[in-house]
C-alpha cells in the first residue's frame, strides 16, 4: 500500500474490501455471540460455549470452524482498517505507511493465530 502522494493506491481496495466484509459479518453476528456467550452465559444461562463438551462437539464441525475463522479474522481486518484512519481523526498525521503496516500486520498475524487455533481444535469425541 505504497503511500506516494497523489499516486493510485494499488492495495487499498483489498483492505477496504476486507473492512467492508468484516463490518457486515460482525454487524450481523457478533452482538448475538456477546449477548449469549459473555453476558447471559456468564450469569447462568446454559449456553453451549460455557460447556467444554458442548463446545468440542459444536466446533468439531468444519463449517463451524470456517465460520469462526471468517468471523474472527474479518473482525481483525475490520478493526485494522478502521483504526488506521481513526488515529487520523485524533490528529495523527505522519507515519501513515508504518501505521498501516502495523495495523494490517496485526490482523494478518491474528488471522494466522486463528487458523492455527481452529485447525488444532480437538474433534468431537471426548
Amino acid at each position: 500500500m505504497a503511500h506516494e502522494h497523489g499516486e493510485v493506491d494499488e492495495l487499498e481496495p483489498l483492505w477496504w474490501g476486507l473492512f467492508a466484509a468484516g463490518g457486515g459479518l460482525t454487524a450481523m453476528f457478533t452482538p448475538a455471540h456477546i449477548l449469549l456467550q459473555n453476558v447471559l452465559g456468564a450469569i447462568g444461562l446454559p449456553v453451549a460455549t460455557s460447556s467444554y463438551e458442548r463446545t468440542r462437539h459444536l466446533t468439531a464441525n468444519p463449517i463451524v470452524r470456517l465460520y469462526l475463522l471468517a468471523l474472527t479474522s474479518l473482525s481483525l481486518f475490520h478493526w485494522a482498517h478502521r483504526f488506521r484512519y481513526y488515529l487520523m481523526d485524533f490528529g495523527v498525521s505522519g507515519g501513515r505507511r508504518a501505521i498501516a503496516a502495523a495495523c494490517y500486520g496485526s490482523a494478518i498475524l491474528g488471522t494466522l493465530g486463528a487458523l492455527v487455533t481452529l485447525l488444532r481444535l480437538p474433534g468431537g469425541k471426548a
Partner: protein
Amino acid sequence: MSNSQIKSGWIRNVAPAPGGYHGSDQPGLPFGWWNANRRYTIYMLREASSVFVALWALRFLMQLGRLRRGKEAYDGFVRAQRHPLWVLFNLISLGFAALHSVTFLQLAGVVQTVRLGERKLPPEQVTAGAFAGWAAASLTVIGALLFGGLRSRKSETEEV
C-alpha cells in the same frame, strides 16, 4: 492557479492568498472537535466500536485455544469470565457491538444499490432488508448457542 506548484500527481501546495491568512495555516482540527455536534460524537464512538469487536474475537479465540488443553483448562477460562469486571466489560462490548451493527446496517442502504430488473430498490428497503438479515443471523447464532452441542439421548446410549 498562477503561483501553485504540483507536489506530485494531482496534489499541490496551496499558495497563500494575497493579503495573507489568519493564524491557522497549520491544518488540523482542535482536540475535541467531535463534541461540536451529536453526529460527530456518534461517529467517533462508532469508530471505537471496532476495537471492542476485535478484542472479543481475540478473547473468543483464546477460549477456543483452551479446548486442546482439556476440560480443566477450558472450564477455568469460562469461570474467570464470570468475574463482575469481565461481565461489565462484556456489557460495554455488547453496547459497542450493537452500535456498530445499527450504524453499519443503516448505512448499507446508502452504499449498496439493489436492482430488481430495471428498478432500483429505495435505500430504506435495502436497509430494512439488512436489519432483517441481522435478526435472522442473530436467531441462528442464538439457536446454535442454546441448543447446539447437546447430544441426543439416542447417541449417548449407543456409545455406551
